């Protein structure tokens, strides 16, 4: 087999042909057409099975056995735990929410930058949220004022629960640019 395979090359060398000489006459027909086709079928089936199995396993990834997702609504204690004029970052890690209390009431800001979704940092001295990814800045109220963020941070639904605790519900969002911040549930008057 190797000797035969090299044959065309030697031919080419001796005849000093410039063009490649692969084509009719260089490879002898050794495999029968019929068996070739059935082998081809086997190969295709094997290939399809392997690919199918592979993609099934990939699909499986999208349905994990356990989901570590914090609940969408949670209680954060009574209002007097929150000092007036402070940005509370206690719930940032667990629930992705900042609780801010001003002289009139309390509101819950989403910690997701409206630009591309990084988590900004609260800078107490500068009194702003500053995103480390592309430098967007938000005021304490959540209004965007610097960098590329196109709109203010979103606020979550905030209400009083029956037991005197504040209840945050992340499944309902209020967007400033749609005029939703004036909704009574976007702001807890205390």
């Amino acid at each position, binding site marked *: 087999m190797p000797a035969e395979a090299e044959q065309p090359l030697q031919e080419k060398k001796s005849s000093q042909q410039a063009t490649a000489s692969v084509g009719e006459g260089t490879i002898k027909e050794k495999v029968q057409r019929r068996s070739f086709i059935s082998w081809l079928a086997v190969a295709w089936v094997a290939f399809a099975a392997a690919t199918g199995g592979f993609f099934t396993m990939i699909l499986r990834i999208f349905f994990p056995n356990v989901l570590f997702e914090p609940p969408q609504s949670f209680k954060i204690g009574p209002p007097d735990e929150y000092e007036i004029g402070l940005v509370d970052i206690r719930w940032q890690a667990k629930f992705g929410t900042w609780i801010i209390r001003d002289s009139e009431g309390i509101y819950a800001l989403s*910690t997701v930058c409206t630009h591309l979704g990084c988590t900004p940092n609260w800078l107490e*001295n*500068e009194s702003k949220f500053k995103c*480390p990814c*592309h430098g967007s800045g938000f005021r304490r109220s959540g209004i965007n004022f610097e960098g590329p963020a*196109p*709109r203010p941070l979103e606020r979550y639904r905030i209400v009083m629960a029956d037991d005197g605790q504040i209840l945050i519900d992340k499944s309902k969002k209020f967007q400033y640019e749609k005029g939703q911040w004036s909704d009574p549930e976007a702001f807890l008057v205390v």
Partner: protein
Amino acid sequence: MEPFKNFIDVLTQPTLMLTLAMFTFPFFFPMNDWFDKWNRRLRLNLLWTKAGLIAVIIGLTLFFVVGVQDAEFRLIMLKPDNVPIVGLIFLVYFFMWVSMKQASDNDKLLSTGEKPNEYHDPDEKVLVWPDLVYVEFISLILCMCLLLVWSIGLDAPLEEPANPAATPNPSKAPWYFLGLQEMLVYFDPWLAGVVFPTIIIFGLMAIPYLDKNPEGSGYYQFKNRRLAISIYMFGWIILWVLLIIIGTFLRGPNWNFFGPFEYWDIHKLEPLTNINLSEIIYIKLFNTGLPSNILVREIFGFIVVFGYFLVFPPLLAKTVLKRIYLQLGNFGYGVFVFLLLCMLSLPIKMYLRWIFNLKYLIAIPEYFFNI
């Protein structure tokens, strides 16, 4: 040393550095006779000679050797993430030199009516095995050695497990995406993250269809292809490599700019209050509030953006790009000029931000449409 460091810190302010780079660029890659005259008069063509190569490499090395003495710069420069970028600076210049050197040699030959160097290349062919495979094998071994030494010498820049609630400050994309990240500072995510990368990829794919100039096929040369080469080099060197370098060395906490020798102060305060075009016009100029109708509010932005893409193509076709227009015809020219204008919109948007604090020309956050 201090004055030198201060000088570099001032010089590398991105505003200044980008301006300098953009305005000196055509002198290095002259795209018409006037720039070519100055290129020779200022002896900038020496850059592509052996002496130029040695001088630039020594200069760069000196800069980094001096720089590494500085505690602040050392932190940035020797961070395992950033070491390859130092290498990239050398490599980009080196490979630019390799091709530009041959190009300028050939330009000289061609201008005296001779054939380019490559014309005299021997015609004889080599075999894949053993000639090519052998060379590949050797390079494989060398690369392995390099990677081994590298991985032993520099620890992989791994961090603690990702935590969605804590984004590292600054958060830098992988180095090859730093250009995109820089773009994201000036554009809305769907533009800078989706539309522009797509345009870049398709634009690169379109080059062989747009640039049908047979001149220089098979050999390096600059003179007869100067517009093509300089447009490409502008996008590549200024808008990609330079942005990677800026992102690597000059972006610090809170995505603020820091000079290479400047302390990364988290509390560095930079007034960056940005406003949209509609606010500039209605509130600052007309002293009225923003109209509630979105279209009325953003009409000026639409005028500017559509004007940019509608006025410039015919204007350029009549003036600077006349030759290209005649060569490419309506459709080809349209594609070409659209790509060109998209490319130029990045520096334009940067300057608008730096000079007017302009955030978006068209800002419709209601429908996630901002330009």
